[in-house]
């Protein structure tokens, strides 16, 4: 028998989780979400998808790289430089944990 819809929502707990501050930034969250759906992506594609500036995008990607959530590869294709970004396993786990925490907090907020 299917579970009632209300049971599928995360149970509010007495101790609410903290949201990962590295991921919580809006652009960084958008970047990690984008990278989670592709194997690898080029800088210009990420810029177009997030509609951000070169400087801001570079800075946010650097923070994700420093946290170990993305890895970067620079190469030349048809004599043009390309910067390729890939999500790491740590980054994927961090995004999963973030979504879980978000759902838990939302569950608590709805039940408050």
């Amino acid at each position: 028998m299917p579970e009632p819809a209300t049971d599928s929502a995360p149970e509010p707990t007495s101790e609410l989780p903290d949201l990962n501050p590295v991921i919580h930034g809006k652009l960084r969250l958008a970047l990690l979400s984008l990278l989670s759906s592709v194997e690898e992506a080029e800088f210009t594609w990420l810029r177009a998808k997030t509609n951000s500036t070169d400087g801001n995008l570079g800075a946010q990607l650097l923070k994700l790289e420093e946290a170990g959530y993305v890895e970067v590869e620079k190469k030349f294709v048809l004599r043009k430089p390309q910067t390729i970004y890939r999500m790491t396993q740590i980054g994927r786990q961090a995004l999963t944990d973030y979504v879980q925490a978000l759902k838990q907090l939302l569950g608590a907020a709805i039940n408050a």
Partner: protein
Amino acid sequence: MIPSFDEQELAKRELTARLSLIETMIAEGRQTTESWGWTFVLWGIAYYVAIAWATWGHSNFAWPVTMIAASLVTAFAASRMGGNQPETTIGRAIGAIWIGVGASLFILLLSASIAGRMDQQTFIAVVGGMLGAANAASSIILKWGAQFACALVWWATAVVACFSSANQSSIVFLVAIFLGQIVFGVYMMLSEARERRTHERKSGAAHA
């Protein structure tokens, strides 16, 4: 200090917006803006060129030269057009199917032709069967009925070629190229253009 109702509502909205951003961006990442309809049209034209050259030019080089030229044009144009497109598992799976089938067809048909073990009907049956397999596999991955119809056209061609004369199978082959390559390619290009327009309208931004 206990947060006020307004503060709680604001926090709830903020969290919901974050969850919505994740969903939107994952959907954006999966949304492909790659265009492949032109390759079907290109290869359809290449088949016609090869057939015309082989028929009226009586050249043994017609098929291998045309196929190598079409492969080079496809590879060059694809690298120019899809320069900053991200690599996805689905994209690689479909690419693998077509590269595998293309290489198999080239090696098999070239070897059989050189060895003199290939008549016209067998040639058409092999091409029809292999292109049917590639289209069917792509359509199943993409869950795209129109491409499966394309696979049916090629499989039907393969079956007819086995039971018909050289002239009949040639006519069926020409019709199959028109339907499976030219018509389907143009239909695909129109669908891709429509999808791009829709996507451009829907596309959102995520500033920091």
